């Protein structure tokens, strides 16, 4: 069977779209809630902190060339504890994907497909995501690579067209909620960039070395951090705090605000295309990486047979929150506030233990020899 490998540009595009997808759901509103007028500073600080976290994690991967984090965890903690940690990561991923599915379906119901039952929407989205996950990593990465410039241009266009609303005064007072809250929220705000860690579970599919993987991560976080900062700044100028903390789907609201005369308005339909695409991609990736983690954890030869069960599980979990407000709270008050612990701190903990127990050193030395 042909070995599937993806290049570094595809990987960077994949990470950028995966992280960037949250700009189209509630992320600009969340950082506005945390930092008030300094929401963009929260993005800047959390982005920089995420780069530091990533460099640390990428360092561990370099000690175990070609091994995914699931395997490294087992090597470090042994099969029993390692399995437990991997299951925690899997459950976190399941929870994240399910909540994205729920939020995306609910947002679609509220904005564009107002009469469609939310469970039907979720089912259709999930079936498409299942198909993408079935086709595997190559399909998802290539799709990201293909759509990445289109989405980037689309976002830039929407932001530029909002220029009549630009008012820099709205970004002041500069420190927003205050130095302490801004720094604290910047720490948990790293959850926003945590998708980069998914790369550590996919290392065996990369055609490049761990050093380049490190660079891909740094580039992706920096790129999307810049985009997030610009999006949040524009959002806060168009819908300044406190109105900026009210909007359910900030980017959609921004695109609805474009009015450049009688013949240039109602451009949100254009936005819906890339909004939908990124959400599909995020759900498909959740399914795929979840299946790969389970495959690696339980040493299974294939991941595809796991997809039906995983799809059903994601669908069921998505509807555990009673209503949209509960799903928003789960995203804003649980996943975004504590997600970084599982996404960044757990792998860092694994790497620290590996460092202390001198795991992986033989391999490193071996490879050097």
């Amino acid at each position: 069977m042909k070995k599937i490998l993806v290049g570094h540009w595809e990987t960077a595009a994949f990470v950028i779209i995966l992280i960037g997808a949250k700009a189209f759901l509630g992320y600009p509103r969340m950082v506005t809630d945390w930092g008030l007028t300094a929401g963009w500073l929260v993005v800047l600080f959390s982005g920089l902190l995420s780069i530091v976290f990533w460099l640390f994690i990428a360092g561990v991967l370099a000690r175990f060339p070609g091994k995914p984090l699931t395997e490294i965890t087992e090597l470090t903690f042994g099969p029993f504890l390692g399995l437990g940690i991997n299951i925690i990561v899997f459950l976190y991923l399941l929870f994240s994907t399910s909540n994205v599915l729920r939020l995306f379906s609910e947002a679609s119901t509220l904005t564009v497909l107002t009469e469609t039952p939310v469970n039907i929407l979720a089912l259709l989205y999930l079936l498409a995501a299942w198909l993408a996950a079935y086709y595997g990593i190559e399909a998802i990465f290539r799709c990201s690579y293909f759509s990445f410039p289109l989405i980037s241009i689309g976002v830039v266009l929407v932001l530029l067209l909002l220029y009549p609303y630009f008012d820099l005064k709205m970004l002041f007072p500069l420190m927003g909620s205050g130095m302490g809250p801004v720094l604290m929220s910047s720490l948990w705000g790293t959850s926003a960039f945590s998708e980069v860690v998914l790369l550590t579970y996919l290392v065996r599919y990369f055609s490049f070395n761990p050093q380049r993987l490190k660079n891909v991560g740094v580039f992706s976080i920096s790129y999307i951090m810049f985009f997030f900062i610009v999006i949040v700044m524009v959002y806060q100028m168009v819908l300044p705090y406190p109105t900026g903390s009210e909007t359910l789907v900030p980017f959609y609201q921004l695109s609805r605000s474009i009015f450049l005369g009688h013949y240039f308005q109602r451009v949100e339909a254009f936005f819906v295309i890339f909004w939908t695409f990124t959400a599909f991609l995020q759900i498909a990736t959740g399914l795929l990486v979840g299946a790969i983690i389970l495959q690696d954890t339980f040493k299974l030869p294939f991941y595809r047979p796991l997809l039906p069960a995983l799809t059903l599980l994601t669908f069921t979990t998505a509807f555990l929150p009673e209503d949209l407000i509960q799903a928003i709270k789960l995203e804003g008050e649980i996943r975004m506030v504590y997600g970084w612990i599982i996404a960044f701190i757990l792998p860092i903990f694994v790497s620290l233990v590996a460092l202390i127990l001198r795991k992986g050193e033989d391999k490193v030395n071996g490879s050097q020899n």
Partner: protein
Amino acid sequence: MVPKIKGVLLLCLMIPLLLLIQGCWGSQETDETGYILLMGFDKGEKDILKVTYQMAIPHPVEGGEAEKATEIISVEAASIYGAQQLVSAFVSKRLTLAHNRGIIISEELAREGLSKYINPLVRSRDLRRTTFLMVVKGKAGDFIEKNKGLIFEKYPSRQIDIFMTFSDVTGFIYKSDIHSFYQGLKLPGQQAVTALVGVQKEKEDEDPKLEQKKPRSYEEKVKEEVAYLPGEIPRKGGNKIELIGLAVFKDDKLVGFLNGEETRYFQMLTGDFKKSIFSFPDPHEPESSLIVMEIKKRAHPKIKIKADEFKTVIEVDILLEGEILSIQSGRNYENGELRQELENYISTFISQEATHLIKKTQEEFTSDIFGFGEYTRGFFWTWYEWVNYAWLAQYPYCEVKVQTLFKIRRPGMMVKTAPTHKY
């Protein structure tokens, strides 16, 4: 061959999915839909709210001219959406606000407070925040009703669109939408305004007190050329409605109006002013001649707030330029000292009027509709410090200094006026 079969099978699987695609749930035939173009809110007589709708009557692409383009209906209910639903009892269309272009609110309702009516508008998935928002002097229902027989356009939505673009060329119409009004309600550094509209007064509607007003001098007539509120413009013909002036709010309540003249100075102070035609009494013959000038914004006004323990000073530099349209006296104001004199005269005139307007908002309305408070954001590190500064409470006591820097850029198509022979 096998991949081909797989592809065909996949396609066969996907086609039924396409048939199930989510759009089918929300399908709505075009002839089922009723497009609301304008919506007006008044206090109800039998229920809380009276909502008036002007709806489009769709026409076939081919065929003869239809009798009328719109239908006006009104209904009373407890809420905006309640009214919209109640319409289904007597209109065989499913109403949508997706193409609604303007919302007109009665003066009476606006004086009671608009927060409760704005909330459903910003929450709406149908309605855009770019929808124009206007307060009518009188009743919203009357405004829509009187505007029924459009003369120059087919639909009122387009008519309002065009009227609002005149904001850029007249300055006395203010382009206000739900978005800007909502920001005015929520931001701690400014208060809200909306465009002011009204209906042309019939002879019998005219206020006897207005009739008894003392006659104005020539100079006053020149200075107050556009100082009208809706319904007051001395005219004949055209649409029955008038858009001129501004409705001033304090918090969410209407507290007063600005006339067309004041609206132009308001826009100069906020930076929204683009251009407008001004008439000034000739400095040398104020009782018999006037000068007409097209004045344009040269740059955004420079606004500085200086605050210490004892006083807060608002300093505004208005930067304008102009083109001479008429000099009735024939004096050569285009060059030399006369030009300098005219520039200084106009600068002083505009500064005085703008200062007078700010004082009016401080003393009469106690409302910072210019958003001067937003310029104090930079004084503070955190949002809470700024909010505690309580700008809006301090605004009425601020000292005001307005300076206008006006330059004549073009003399029109003449460089000077040759003397007229007199025998």
